[in-house]
Every structure is written in C-alpha cells, then in structure tokens.
C-alpha cells in the first residue's frame, strides 16, 4: 500500500491546497510542502523495511501492489518499485520539494490552483516511475500532461499560450502512438497466449516477428523520443522550458524529460531486444546530433533560460547514447546522467528564476558583474555552471564519463563525436560564468543576495550533486540489479 499512498498523498495535498486557497497563502504552501515531505518520509520508511534488503531472490521488486482495476480488460493497478524506480522517485520528491520552495515568492496569483497543478504533475510522474501495468503507465503518462499544461499556460511568461499549446500537442501526439503500440502488444500477446493483460512482466515474454516488433517498438520510441527529447522531436522543449514558471521549468527539465529515458530503459530495451539492436546506431546518431546541435544553439541564445533549455537537449543526448549503447556501463551512466542532469539543470533554472525575480529580465545582455553585489548567488551559479560542463567532482562528470566508456565498446566514432560535445559544454558554461557573474555590471543595479530560504534550497542541491560526483557508489549499486536484469534480454 505504501506505493499507492505515495501517489495519493500528493493528489490529496493538491486538493487540500486548492480548497484552502482563500484562507491563507502560507497554509497552502505548507500543505504542499508537507505532503511532499510526508511522501519522502514514506519512501524512507519503505526503504528501511527489512524486506527491502532481504526480499526473495527471484523477485526483482522491492515492494509491490497488484489489485484489479478493470478486470474485463485485464487491467490492474500494478505498482512496484525496484532500484531504478527508487532513485527516480527520490529524485522526483527532491525536485518536487525544491519546486515548491522556489515558488514561495515567485507565485502570488491563485496559489491554491498553482499547487494543485504542481502536486498533480508530480503525482503523475511518480505514477510513471512505479507503474507496471502498461495501461496504468499510459494513464499516468497522459495525466501529468494536463496540470503541466496549465502550469505553463496560466503562470508562465510572455509567450505562454504558444509554448503550452506546442508542449501539449507534441507530447500528446507521441503518447497516442504509444497507445496504439501498447494495444498492439496487448492483442498480440492475447492472441498468442489467450491471456489478455497489460501486465509488464507477462508482456515481456511476447514473441513477435521482426517486422511487427519494429512497428510496435516505433510507437513507444516516438513517445519517449518526444519526451527525451531526441532530435528532431525537440521543438517543444525550448519554448516550454523558457515560458514555464521556475517550478515548471524545474519539473520539466528535471523530471519530465526523465520519464522518456525511463520508458526507453524499462519498456523498449527488454520488450523489443531485436528491434533495439536494429535501431541502435540510428538512435545513437540522433543522440550525437542532439549533443552537438543543443550545445551550438545554446551558444547562440540571448535569453539565459532558453540557453539552459538548449543545454538540456545536449545533455539528454548522452542519455540516448547510453541507453542504446546498451551495455551495463553505458546504461548505468545514462541513469546517473538522468539524476545528475535533473539536479544540475533544475538548479540552473532555479538560479535563472532567482535572477529574474531580482532584475525582471532573462536577457543575458542586461546581466553582468553579479559577483560583487551578490556573491552567494554567484557562487552557486558558478558551481552549477561547472557541474553542467562536467567538471570532475560533480555527478555529471561521473555520468558522462561512464556513458563514453560504455559507448566506446560499441563504436569509437560515436564516442569521439559525443565527447566533442563536452568541449562545447565548457564553452557555453564558462560563457555564462563570464557574462553573468564576472565582468563589469552593464547597468548599475541593486541586487539583493540570497535569503536564508534560498541558501537552504541551493545548498541542498549543491550537496546532492557533489555527493553524486564524489561517492556515486550507492546509486550505482542500487541500480545495478535492474540494469543486469534488463541486460538479460539484450541480444547484443
């Protein structure tokens, strides 16, 4: 039941925040924060349960919940958590808490509805990471879209209508193709075995001809590639990230993109091993193009937020390469990259939010010399810029290094090209540092430095990214069995 509560608590918290909107703004914020903290406690509680460590050897799942939902169609509420889900759920709750805190001062307009949407998006994302019934997975996949759409549409910046529409239609289109594929899988399995089910563990064993497998796989791939985003399915990303409120950008970059990568690892790799082997090279080439294209476009941006959005495209290219290199080193690296990118890019978006709160613009041309008026803000800014360029000591370095090592075993050319992205990352990261934090102030400005709340939030993120960089072993250990079990299906 812990897993169900994990989703119910944010849903209920969101409703409570919405209902008490009129009473007290502080109450709303604390309700939202409280429900996420409660969720984290619950996760910690589940984590330390003895069954977590000693659980049956054959059962890969740490905790599981399986109750019928629509029995006529073989749909169950099947939630389960393994190491991969666990780290992603932890990431979701961590960034969820950050996004509530970073909206503390930014959002004043209809805060009840805002937190409702925020928490419901998080609930949808949590659901995606622990759903093991493909219908349920699709349900959560669609569910997180609508509140995210409203977050951008109502609380976003100038061009929010266009951005939110684009976001919704891109992701919904991908999702619908995935639905067709899920149903194809369902009927292929049903006709072969007589058991009509959406259950993940049963669908893992489906036998298909190579051609069918390829078409069914492409529906999944399309949905996940839009989310990831892989070139050429990325056009929604810069707009959505730029126009969303800070909390929205944090969730988009930190979590929503990860659902695409998660889907590739959890569903595409084990269910369609042959088709994956077939498209591995094209997919990795898309990843390389993404790395270089994102980095080059980031260099050309005048809007700081848009710049960071393009670096996301670049960083997620590594995830795509790591997944399709499809060996345990590369996959571990991809998972690390998901987490490290979630935290570092999330932090960068928070920093842009902090800057925008203070000087009311995101234009790099109007920034500069922040170091002297706001040394603390600048310190964290530089810290995360360095993390983003992959400096050793930060989680991103570990992740990108592992991806490159793993990929080298598959293709040296792709490794070399992907590594060139690291050089470009150095250029745009140091460019941010130079233009924003160093140099002479463009115009005289009174920049208030970070408050205690902001320092607390930023240091938590800094601690997390440093921990991942200096001692990544716990994360790698917990993910390892999952990656091994997925590797069993691989044909490479």
């Amino acid at each position: 039941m812990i897993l169900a509560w994990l989703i119910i608590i944010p849903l209920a918290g969101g409703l409570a925040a919405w209902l008490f909107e009129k009473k007290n703004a502080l109450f709303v914020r604390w309700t939202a924060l409280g429900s996420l903290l409660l969720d984290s406690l619950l996760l910690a509680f589940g984590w330390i349960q003895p069954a977590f460590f000693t659980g049956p050897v054959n059962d890969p799942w740490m905790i599981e919940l399986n109750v019928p939902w629509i029995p006529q169609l073989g749909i169950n509420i099947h939630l389960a958590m393994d190491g991969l889900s666990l780290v992603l759920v932890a990431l979701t709750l961590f960034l969820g808490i950050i996004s509530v805190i970073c909206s503390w001062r930014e959002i004043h307009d209809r805060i009840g509805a805002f937190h409702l949407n925020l928490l419901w998006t998080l609930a949808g994302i949590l659901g995606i990471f622990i759903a093991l019934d493909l219908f349920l997975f699709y349900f959560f996949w669609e569910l997180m879209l609508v509140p995210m759409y409203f977050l951008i549409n109502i609380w976003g910046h100038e061009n929010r209508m266009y951005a939110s529409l684009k976001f919704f239609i891109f992701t919904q289109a991908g999702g619908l193709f995935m639905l067709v594929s899920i149903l194809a899988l369902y009927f292929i399995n049903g006709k072969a075995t007589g058991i009509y089910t959406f259950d993940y563990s049963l669908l893992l064993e489906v036998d298909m001809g190579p051609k069918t497998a390829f078409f069914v796989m492409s529906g999944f791939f399309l949905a996940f590639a839009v989310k990831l985003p892989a070139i050429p399915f990325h056009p929604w990303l810069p707009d959505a990230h730029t126009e969303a409120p800070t909390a929205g950008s944090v969730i988009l970059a930190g979590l929503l993109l990860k659902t695409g990568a998660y889907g590739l690892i959890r569903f595409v790799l084990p269910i369609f091993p042959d088709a994956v082997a077939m498209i591995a090279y094209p997919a990795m080439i898309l990843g390389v193009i993404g790395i270089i294209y994102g980095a080059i476009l980031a260099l050309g941006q005048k809007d700081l937020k848009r710049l960071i959005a393009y670096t996301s495209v670049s960083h997620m290219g590594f995830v795509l390469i790591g997944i399709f290199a499809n060996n345990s080193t590369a996959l571990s690296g991809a998972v690390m990259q998901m987490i490290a990118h979630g935290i570092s890019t999330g932090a960068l978006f928070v920093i842009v939010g902090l800057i925008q709160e203070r000087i009311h613009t995101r234009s790099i041309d109007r920034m500069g010399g922040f170091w002297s008026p706001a040394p603390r803000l600048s310190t964290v800014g530089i810290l995360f810029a360095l993390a983003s360029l992959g400096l050793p000591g930060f989680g991103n370095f570990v992740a990108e290094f592992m991806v490159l090592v793993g990929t080298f075993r598959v293709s040296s050319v792709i490794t070399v090209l992907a590594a060139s992205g690291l050089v470009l990352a150095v250029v745009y990261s140091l460019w941010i540092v130079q233009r924003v934090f160093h140099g002479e102030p463009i115009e005289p400005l009174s920049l208030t430095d970070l408050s205690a709340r902001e320092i607390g939030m930023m240091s938590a993120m800094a601690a997390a990214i440093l921990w991942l960089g200096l001692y990544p072993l716990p994360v790698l250990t917990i993910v390892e069995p999952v990656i091994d079990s997925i590797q069993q299906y691989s044909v490479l």
Partner: protein
Amino acid sequence: MTKTDIILLLPLMIVGGTSVVIMLILAFFRNHALTAGLAIMGFALAAASIPMIAPLSPRNVTTLIVIDPYALFYMGLIFISGMAVAALSFPYLEMHEEHREEYYLLILVATLGAAVLVASTHFVSFFLGIEMLSVSLYALASYIRHSDKCIEAGVKYLILAAVSSAFILFGMALIYAEIGSMDFARIAARISATGVHGLTLFAGLGMIIVGMGFKLAVVPFHLWTPDVYEGAPAPVSAFIATISKGAVFALLLRYFSKLNIHAQPRIIVMITIIAIASMFVGNLLALLQTNVKRILAYSSISHLGYLLITLIASGPTAVTAATFYITAYMITMLGAFGVVSILSRPERDADQIEDYQGLAYQRPWLAGIFTVMLFSLAGIPLTAGFIGKFYVVAAGVNSGLIALIIILVINSIIGLFYYLRIIIALYSAPREAEAIRVGKTISGHAVLAGLLIVLIWFGVYPGPLIAVIQKTIQSIL
C-alpha cells in the same frame, strides 16, 4: 398481447403517459415549473422502471418491438439524458418569453421516438420512431420564435430531415420489393446468406444508409449540422447531438452486428470512406470556427467518424467499445452544451469564444466543468472520454484496422487544437465590462454536477459499467 408484454412496455408508456398528462394539464392552466417538474419526474420514473422489468427481458413484444437488455440499456441512457435536457431547458426557457410549457411535451415525444428506435425490429417501428423524433425536433429547433437564427435552424432541419426520411422510406420500399419482408431479422438473415446482390437491394440499403447518415450527421451528409446546432436553442442542440444520434447509432449497431459484414466488401468500403471523411472534415473544419456551438457540431461529426470504426471492426469488443463510447460521448456533450446553455443570455446564446474569455476567474465552477468536458472530448484521462477512445482504439487494433486507427490518432491530435483553444480562452485574462453573466440556476448546476461526477466515475473506475455493457450486448450478438 399478454400481461408481460404490457409490463415490458412500461418505460415507453410512462414517457408517453407523462406527455398526455402534461397536455391535459395545459388545457386548464399553465405553470412552467410544474410542467418541467412533471417532465423530469416522468423521465425519472421511466428510467427507474427499467431495472424492474429487466428480469423479464428479452422478449419480443409484438412483431414491431423487442425489449432486450440492449434496448433497455439504451432506453435508460436516453431517458436519463432526456431528464438532463429537460432540467437544463428550465432555466434557459425562464429567460425567454415564449409559451414555455409545450416545449416539454415535444421533448417527451422526441425521447419516446428515440426509445422506440432502439427497440425496433421492424421497418414500421423504425420509421415511426424516427419520425416521432424528427417531427418533434423541427418544432424544438425553432422554438425561440423571435430569433431569426432559430427559425432558420428549424427550417433547415425540417427540409433535410424530411429529405432523409424520404430516402429511408424509398430504401425500405426497395428492400421490401426484393426480399418481401420488413422484419430486420429476416432481412439480415437473407443478406448474410446470399450477400448483397442485385441493384434493387443494393440501392435500397444504400438509401437507408444515406438516410441514417443524415441523422448521424456524418460526412457527406453533415452540411446541416453546424447551422442547426448554432441556431437551435442550446439545450435542443444538446438533444440533437446526444439522444437523436445515440438512438440512431444504437439501431445501426444492433443490425450491423447481425449482418456478417466482412462478407460485404462494398458496405465496408462505403462505411470506411464515410468514417475517414467524417473524422477529417469534422476536425479540420472545427479549426476554422469561432463559434463554440459550431465547434461542438464539427466535433460531434468527428466523434461519429470515430464511432463508425467500431461498425467496421465488428465483434463483441467493438460493440462494447461503441456502447461505452456513446455513453461517454452523451455525458460529455450534454455537459458541454449544458455550460453553453447556462451561460446564455436572453438576447443570444453564449456561443462566441470571446464569451468564455476569463470565465475561470469569474465563474470557476462552470469553467472547471467546461474544461473537464472538453478534455473528455479530447480523450484525456480521468474522464470517461479517455476510456471510450481507448476502447475504440483497442477494438480497431484487435480487428487489424491499423490504418484507420492511425487516422484516428492523427485526428485526435488535430482535435486538440480547437479544444485547447476554448480552454485557453477560459483561462486568459477576462475582458472588461463583461462582468455580468447570467446563469444562477439550481437545476442547471445540479445537472452539471451530476454529469461531472458520472464522467469522472466512469473515467476512473469503468469496470462496473463495462460489465453491464458486456452483459447487455449479449442479447444482440
């Protein structure tokens, strides 16, 4: 006619009886609230009688009507929708200075026609049902007599519905000439056995499909739809979009499941073309509209296109999918038109997108409901529309209609544009000087609340409804 037969006809007799009672009362004195209350009560009683007589079904009552679980399910749906339309009409008519009471009489008779339609087994009851439905709707569509648009809508509907009735009649005559029977079961058996041979039979079937195409407003028989939906009073548009279409489709479904459709390539081609055209034309033309009622009209055209896929798919999954889809569609359309009707003013209906600008700030409850209804039309989770669309896609994939399903997916994406356009208007900054909005009505809000609850209930926990549908469709397979 035995006693059992009479008991089985109870729902029809209650609705018919209510209209007679209202007519008699109107002869003596007029009271709007009393009449509306009586009509609503009549619908409620008729709906309540259905579970009571269900154990006696299935049974043929005369050669014209069959009361089986399938018919009873649709009757229940139709009566409850009729009740919702009546309750939504009350506040709407309160604003207008007309003779309000006869309206309910017409609603009752039209609903009775729809109920006869879903239970008919014979050309005679089929035609009787369709005429009761249409003739009442001519009058209802032009009920607000001082409005030119309304009169125009009524006349348009009159001419086109009459033409389509003529088509159906001629088709019936041709089929009768060829087969020598007006009983559906026999006709279906004959067609299944020997196929559609000979010009007469083919022409007859074609004409009936054309006639029903008019009633369902599928392309290319859809031209009247946007104009009539736009001009007719909002609750009447709701009636045409839900009850009228639902009943005709239920009849179609009943007899298509008896025909061995896969042996009839010509009919499959015909329906495939109609389905594809309806999806594309409905969705693409909806993109160009600025009038909410017209958007809903085009949206309903495209929804019927989706539904036609289930006719081609055929089989138990497809029939279940179609029935679930119709249920979800009726709830959603009633809700959407309900919001339009509650926001309407005496001068004109709230049909421009600008009327909805900033509604979320002024009337969050109505804006919320409208949002949920639009999401249901678009097939987003937590709503019954999602499960319905999921089921239709499942039925299509099951029958291997991948191309049609891909077209459905593409159309769903196009559909998002115009649903989101309304939603964007709801949540953008309100216009000045438009703060006064009418629409404080208990009955209207109660209906909307009920529809919302049902919509989300079926969207989150559809198991029980699916179980009921699966049981009822046994009787027609």
